[in-house]
């Protein structure tokens, strides 16, 4: 199962997909792409404790993707 965690003002929102289910993968990809367009950054986190790596395209095989709003310098 894949998992998108989208950060928001009410805490993160979870979107789950089954990599074998095309409809779920497509729906998750649409969500992913729309948020990337809005300026969110995506980080793939494979296993517990692993360092995240930034991705720019939706990877249905990624275990967990965290979508982070834009980061700015203070």
């Amino acid at each position, binding site marked *: 199962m894949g998992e998108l*965690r989208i*950060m*928001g*003002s*009410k*805490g*993160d929102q979870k979107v789950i997909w089954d990599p074998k289910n095309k409809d779920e993968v497509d729906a998750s990809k649409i969500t992913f792409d729309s948020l990337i367009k809005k*300026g969110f*950054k995506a*980080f793939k*986190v494979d296993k*517990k*404790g692993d*360092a*995240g*790596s*930034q991705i720019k395209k939706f990877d249905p095989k990624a275990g*967990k993707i*965290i979508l*982070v*709003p*834009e*980061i*700015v*310098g*203070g």
Partner: protein
Amino acid sequence: MAPYTSTDYYGSSSDTAWVSWNSHVPEGTSCTSTWYYWNSETCTAIGNSYNTWGNWCENVDNYTVWTDVGNLVIQHKTKRLARTLNFRKRLIKRSEKKRRKDLAKIEIHKRNREAAEIRAKELLLDLIGEDQLKIYNETGRLFVRGRKNDYIVQKYGYVKKLEKDKVVDLCIHLDNKTKYPETDNVIALKLLIEGNEEKFTKTAHHACYAPAYNELPKCACMP
């Protein structure tokens, strides 16, 4: 002469008030100084008219009537003053209602933020594990290893970039960061350091420098 203390005047018709006045003041309405005082205050009244009293009650805030003897006889709330007081009362009631509404809104906002922070900590728990989360809860700090440098990301305050001989304070955060739970800000910075350190250092503003730590402060770190 005993002071006149009736409150009948307020809200009564002018003629009733007038009769009431006559029955309580021995000098009666013919008393020169009384009329003088009334007329000088209302400016329009004619002494022998019932309307005088009506005008009086309607248009002055506090009336004080003097007899020939020169004693203070009456000090009453008039209709105008009553209207002002009622208006003030309504105003206070309205602002109190608004204040209560605002307090309720603040309370809801506070509860939502707390719930959001709990969710953010659940996400951090997935990333660092239970033991490290305990340390994070205690210190509000997370140690993050980048490719070039190490960092301490704090729940509140600057990100500390640890260099060989100094500590650099970096100002970097989520855009509109007050909108998000504090721990989401920590997670976002951790991910950016690990995933794209170059972008992280380019984005951050270097606030100030300090000597290197003799001993690293207690922080949660990756297991």
